[in-house]
């Protein structure tokens, strides 16, 4: 067995990233797309922390990951507010059939 190196973490994040892209492309439900975006953000975070550790403990990577988590929280709050509004107007959240924000 190969010892755990930087590449292991990078490939793990690549798997997560590809799955997230696949989820965004194939789903029509807005919340499903939101969850796939979370997967992608997590994969980017794994990269940040892995580079931070394997670069002689450079803390900058962990700070960047922290800000990504903060932005993800803000993003989910706004996105869910918009999705709730869309649901009140359309009674569904199928992104293929949503054409305008206001009737």
């Amino acid at each position: 067995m190969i010892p755990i190196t930087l590449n292991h973490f990078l490939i793990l994040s690549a798997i997560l990233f590809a799955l997230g892209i696949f989820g965004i492309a194939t789903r029509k439900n807005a919340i499903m797309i939101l969850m796939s975006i979370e997967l992608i953000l997590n994969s980017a975070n794994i990269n940040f922390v892995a580079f931070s550790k394997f670069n002689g403990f450079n803390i900058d990577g962990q700070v960047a990951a922290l800000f990504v988590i903060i932005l993800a929280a803000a993003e989910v709050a706004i996105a869910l507010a918009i999705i709730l509004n869309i649901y009140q107007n359309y009674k569904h959240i199928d992104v293929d059939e949503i054409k305008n924000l206001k009737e």
Partner: protein
Amino acid sequence: MSIIEIVFYCFALIIVVSAMGVVFSHKLMYAAFSLLFTFFGVAGIYVLLNADFLAVVQIMIYVGGILVLIIFGIMLTTKVTDVENISGNTGKWIYAGSALVAAILFVVLVYTFNTTNWTVYSTPYRDTTIDLLGGALLTKYVLTFFMAAVLLLIAFIGAAFIAKKGK
């Protein structure tokens, strides 16, 4: 096989399987609960990478905040009388096409990762990273830190305003 390898492969398996559960499951609620395991797995990977504070932040914000918000969103946007909350599949061609795109993306990423000659420095062992993180946040990144605080405030006020019923 050392203990670190066993731990890494366990968490990697958890992450990959539950992420596939998120992407492929047909019911929204199952996808949300799969996402829970993905977040826990990523927190474990953080611990493995010596990022203890980040792991706690991951569990508190992602599991305690974002996931709860997402589950609230699912419950508020589906009718209770629905037989099942389907996650909405697109057609077969789009499915195959996006699988192809994702696979190509994955191959290109892995190829880049494997062929790049990363400069890896030896890592000194540290008990905790909280002191380093706090020092960086309050010296080098202090402006970004305040901007993030203001952004969060504005985002939450905006979210409450947008979601308000009956304007």
